[in-house]
């Protein structure tokens, strides 16, 4: 494959994996190839990343594809190093594990990668019955070496008599954990490379790339993703807060302060040399959040509670209410400065949101209007988060419309795809006639929603 074909194929694969690479950016990358040393692989990777990847969420996918299109080594070109005390081809597994233990605490990336490649070569091939099937696997490498069981050994080696359980151990654990991840990645990368050599890059490329973080469905989110999402939530909340504030701001500089301007002009014989403005008055929007915390949307609920928590710190006046079939104010759990994980636990134990355990939007809305109706006023933005699935109970549309009429703005974010609205017990469209409803399944859509607010 010539360089230009490789370049074009790589850019094409990035586009197929969901990265928006424009023609201009592809040209930039080609330009960059002319000025850097192509033999330096990391510099090549950096050059492609700088010109093509403009969002951190796309980076993992980019790295997978880069390793496929520009592999670090190819099979059959192994430089045999004779000075190695350990023969990786024949050494017993125990010795290999010892070697890995050393690499996990003190090895360089390069050593870790080389070791991973050797291990894939030794353990990664599995016999398959059907010809042409991919027959390289990372799980067999992991099963043979089981790096996650090495922690005790590492701790013993490194701490050597130091007190257990303290800061030193935490640091070592952190380090080993990180290196283990790196080792796993290196193995997975090498497995993909070998499969690509056997059956072509394009075939493996399609299945190898996971969707970027901001396109992962809220309802199908894993725990690990959730932890990463938390980091995305804060900036979003801040953005939402600014958006709602900007909407209410009148002039940028404030109005002309006529009196002060005139008085200042006396100095210059009546010519208004300096203009004075009234300081702009920032409007502090109030926010009322109503969120569905039932099990059917539990991962979404978890996310919205995080969002609530983050918003709580941005707005002067936020009141949050959680509901399943009855409603409770949950603001008190999100005191500014409180620990978010702790707040969630307390929330689950103490808040009174569940009567029978089946979501009932109608009842919850009625109870809300009854008990907390005065929370919504002409300065309030009302934000409802939920899937509008009400277990065939009456939706109480009139209650909702009176709430909406009283508020300044109202928005509804629904974590289900639009195509599933109105199926089964969903009353999305009915609610949608009262409150503008937005599909909000991933961070990208939430971001887009926030952008439309201005």
């Amino acid at each position, binding site marked *: 494959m010539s360089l230009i074909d490789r370049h074009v194929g790589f850019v094409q694969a990035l586009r197929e994996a969901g990265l928006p690479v424009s023609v201009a950016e592809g040209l*930039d990358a080609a330009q960059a190839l002319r*000025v850097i040393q192509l033999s*330096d692989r990391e510099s090549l990777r950096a050059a492609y990343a700088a010109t093509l990847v403009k969002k951190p969420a796309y980076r993992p996918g980019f790295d997978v594809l880069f390793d496929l299109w520009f592999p670090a080594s190819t099979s059959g070109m192994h430089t045999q190093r004779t000075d190695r005390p350990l023969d990786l081809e024949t050494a017993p597994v125990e010795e290999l594990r010892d070697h890995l233990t050393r690499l996990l605490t003190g090895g360089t990336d390069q050593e870790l990668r080389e070791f991973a490649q050797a291990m894939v070569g030794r353990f990664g091939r599995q016999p398959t019955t059907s010809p042409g099937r991919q027959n390289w696997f990372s799980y067999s490498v992991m099963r043979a070496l089981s790096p996650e069981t090495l922690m005790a050994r590492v701790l013993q080696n490194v701490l050597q008599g130091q007190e257990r359980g*303290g800061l030193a151990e935490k640091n070592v654990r952190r380090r080993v954990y990180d290196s283990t991840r790196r080792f796993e990645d290196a193995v997975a990368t090498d497995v993909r490379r070998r499969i690509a050599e056997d059956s072509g890059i394009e075939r493996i490329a399609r299945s190898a790339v996971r969707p970027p973080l901001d396109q992962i469905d809220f309802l199908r989110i894993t725990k690990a993703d959730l932890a990463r999402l938390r980091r995305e939530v804060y900036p979003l909340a801040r953005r939402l807060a*600014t958006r709602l504030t*900007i909407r209410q701001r009148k002039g940028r500089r404030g109005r002309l302060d006529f009196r002060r301007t005139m008085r200042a002009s006396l100095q210059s014989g009546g010519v208004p040399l300096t203009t004075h403005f009234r300081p702009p008055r920032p409007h502090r929007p109030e926010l009322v959040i109503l969120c569905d915390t039932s099990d059917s949307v539990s991962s979404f609920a978890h996310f919205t509670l995080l969002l609530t928590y983050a918003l709580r710190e941005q707005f002067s006046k936020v009141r949050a209410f959680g509901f399943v079939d009855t409603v409770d104010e949950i603001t008190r759990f999100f005191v500014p*400065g409180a620990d978010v994980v702790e707040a969630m636990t307390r929330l689950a134990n103490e808040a009174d949101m569940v009567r029978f355990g089946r979501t009932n939007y109608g009842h919850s809305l009625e109870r809300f209007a009854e008990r907390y109706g005065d929370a919504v006023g002409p300065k309030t933005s009302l934000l409802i988060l939920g899937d509008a699935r009400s277990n065939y109970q009456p939706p109480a549309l009139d209650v909702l419309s009176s709430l909406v009429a009283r508020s300044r703005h109202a928005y509804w974010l629904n974590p289900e795809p639009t195509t599933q609205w109105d199926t089964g017990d969903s009353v999305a469209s009915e609610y949608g006639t009262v409150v503008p409803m937005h599909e909000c399944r991933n961070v990208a859509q939430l971001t887009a929603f926030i952008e439309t607010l201005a």
Partner: protein
Amino acid sequence: MFDSPADVTARLAAVDYLSDDAISTSVFLAAALGKPLLVEGPAGVGKTQLAKAVAMATGAELIRLQCYEGLDEARALYEWNYKKQLLRIQATSADDDIFSEEFLLERPLLKAIRAAEPTVLLIDETDKADVEVEGLLLELLSDFQVTIPELGTIVATRRPYVVLTSNATRELSEALKRRCLYLHLEYPTPERERDIVLSQVPGIRADLAERLARTVATLRALELKKAPSVAETVDWANTLLALGREELDEATVSGTLGVVLKHASDQTRAVKELGLPDVADR
């Protein structure tokens, strides 16, 4: 400006900025392709410092535009000297031309465009500015020119080296990103952070710096409201030095936690997760 990424690494190191492959390549490409460099990442990873280091390493003048909400053309690009114009009108006949060079007040962007000497233009915290400012930047960043209605188009005599920084609190527009090279800066690896500490704090012992970097990495892995920045790691090293501590044991960490963690809830969490002696006991 630079010969190769390796040259970038060497020259940045000469002004005490330790870079890595990604940074050096991006900085080099920005110079070689003549494109602005957008640096994004969490607060305190050395984004602004990078621009300063580039300016210092190349002996260019640094022109800085600090963005904030409500920044407008008048503060970023140019403004007409209203007082001077008014006085001129009063002093002479009204049809005198009051829109000429002499009434023009240069702001950072215009200054960078018109500079004859090599310059580094730093547009700091671009995400803080309103969307309109991005529009303003588009013409500047793609063609290196600005149009002033009364004067016409001013084309750069010498292209400034442009660095934009952003904390990603707001997604910058596609149009802006397309015109820039992109560099995402993360917290440095413990090894690199150790070297940074060693270069910034000359008196510190290597093993203490190593332990410091590892501890900071552990802290960052906790779910904190505000993770410690590189500058705070350096502060921490200085603190230890000033206190004359040779070791980083639990008591020392717990006593000086305030140098790196600036939220009460973060401190409580770190004490709990790392098994430090209670802050109240110190």
